């Protein structure tokens, strides 16, 4: 028993068949953790069975943030439902928009024009940076690195200001829509973006100076929460969880969408499979995102940012004053909306947390029959139970932190 306890800190040797008594032959302790706990990134409740400080069992209880988003979408028209997609994984609204837009576009059989695709890539990569900033800030805060939060939120705020510049909204942008994007980027946006890609690599160096070789950070993350690549695949883990275990699976590279195949970037992959490897993966992704942003800025094509289809998107404002047909289209779109041919489709994008998919069923009417989100956090959270068994309860914080679950995404 004692040898098992020794290696248990590495996360793997203690199995579920452990005896129901604790180390000294006494009863195991069951404690309630959450739902209102600052380290759970939302409202996650865990029922933890403890042997001293070792975890013998975890039962996540979720649903505290369930807002019935999939149900609400069935009551909204296709173009209205975009607004709801923003709100379930509230840290990566652009990726949620994109998955939904790609699914609807595939059902409609339209493809966004090249400029819209490039704008989508730019906004998604900015979103990835802002999401990783918040992740790095909060999860290092939980492990005691207080000042990280200030540094990371500084860059996140820059990205939110860019969101506001391009879409008028800081967080829930609803920027990407079926058929294209909401608006073209302004001159000021390009200036902000040029400034940002110039400065961001230096900021990532700052983060690395504070954490990568920090002895306390390493003691809290190296060897903690080990997940082998076979288990990662078996448990359906995606994103930095599977890449941190050594599988270079990134949908942007392996099953490209929205023109990602045009950009030259590397998939961030680490082989250690622990919390530190997942941290390194995300740090690499910061740099790769900046690389993609630079290329996308330099190569953005001219042209329309929406498909030229009056049945799908409203006509430009100036046409309404001269064209009767434009008024009719406008009226039809905002009273009835457009209909989508019957069928079902699954479209997936690589969100900061992993594979974010959107499964859409249309029955041919102007509202979706069913929208199902394949939430990366929901699946990754199931791996938590597996990763944390046999580790210390304090390490569970590091494991939850580096799994980067967003409870709005888990509960939808």
């Amino acid at each position, binding site marked *: 028993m004692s040898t098992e306890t020794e290696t248990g800190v590495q996360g793997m040797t203690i199995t579920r068949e452990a005896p129901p008594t604790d180390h000294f032959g006494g009863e195991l302790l069951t404690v309630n953790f959450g739902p209102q706990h600052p380290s759970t990134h939302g409202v996650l409740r865990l029922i933890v069975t403890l042997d001293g400080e070792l975890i013998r069992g975890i039962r996540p209880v979720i649903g505290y943030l369930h807002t019935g988003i999939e149900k*609400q979408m069935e009551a909204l028209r296709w173009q209205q439902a975009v607004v709801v997609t923003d709100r379930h994984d509230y840290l990566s609204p652009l990726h949620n928009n994109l998955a939904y837009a790609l699914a609807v576009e595939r059902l409609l059989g339209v493809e966004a024009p090249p400029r819209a695709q490039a704008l989508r890539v730019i906004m998604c990569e900015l979103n990835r940076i802002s999401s990783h900033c918040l992740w790095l800030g909060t999860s290092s805060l939980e492990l005691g690195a207080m000042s990280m939060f200030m540094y990371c939120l500084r860059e996140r705020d820059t990205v939110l200001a860019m969101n506001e510049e391009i879409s008028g909204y800081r967080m829930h942008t609803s920027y990407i829509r079926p058929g294209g994007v909401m608006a073209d980027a302004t001159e000021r946006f390009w200036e902000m973006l040029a400034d940002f890609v110039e400065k961001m690599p230096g900021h990532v160096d700052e983060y690395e100076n504070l954490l990568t070789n920090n002895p306390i950070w390493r003691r809290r993350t190296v060897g903690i929460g080990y997940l082998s690549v076979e288990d990662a695949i078996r448990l359906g883990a995606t994103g930095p969880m599977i890449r941190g275990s050594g*599988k270079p699976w990134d949908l942007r590279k392996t099953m490209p969408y929205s023109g990602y195949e045009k950009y030259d970037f590397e998939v961030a992959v680490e082989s250690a499979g622990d919390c530190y490897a997942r941290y390194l993966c995300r740090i690499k992704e910061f740099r790769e995102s900046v690389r993609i942003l630079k290329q996308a800025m330099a190569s953005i094509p001219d042209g329309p940012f929406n498909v030229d289809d009056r049945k799908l998107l409203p006509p430009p404002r100036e046409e309404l004053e001269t064209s009767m047909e434009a008024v009719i289209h406008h009226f039809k779109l905002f009273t009835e909306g457009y209909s989508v041919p019957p069928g079902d489709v699954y479209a997936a994008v690589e969100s900061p947390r992993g594979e974010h998919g959107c499964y859409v069923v249309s029955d041919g009417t102007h509202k979706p029959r069913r929208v199902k989100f394949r939430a990366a956090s929901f699946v990754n959270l199931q791996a938590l139970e597996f990763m944390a068994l046999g580790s210390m309860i304090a390490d569970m914080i590091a494991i939850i932190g580096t799994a980067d679950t967003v409870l709005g995404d888990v509960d*939808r």
Partner: protein
Amino acid sequence: MSKARTRPHASHEHVLDEGVSAGDRWITVKREGIAETLRALQAEGYQSFLFMSAVDHLATPVRPEPPERFELIYQLRNLEAREELRVRVWVPEDDPVAPTASEVYAPAGWDERETWDLFGIRFDGHKDLVRILMPDDWEGHPLRRDFPVGGEVVDFSEDHEVWQTAPEKA
């Protein structure tokens, strides 16, 4: 498209139908053979289980009409060949039960709990089939089409005794 390159699964004994929807390949499988088919597909290389869920086809305007009210969807992926496959199972309204897939694919455990919670479809052999998103004492299954939007009682509101939308009007 590369998606139609291989089609080994058409030979499974439980497969009823196959096709392509908006570029996604799918097969329909007999309800009792779902776990067996998934096991065979897993051995064929579909290691990754993306999600499973259900669709309620109550009063659908689609013609020809779907054979049953509920449809279960299992989305699988072959990581090496980079192919996806959707497996469909029809589940009748009066007997909403299907065999569990959680023995084959681990992530199906929570997905089946969610499907039970939101659609009221039970999974035979699931070890822990309890509600996951809704409260334990919830009545009804919210994602069924006959469950009204805004149909829940709002706690701590002045008219908390009344329904926001009467079920018959939704």
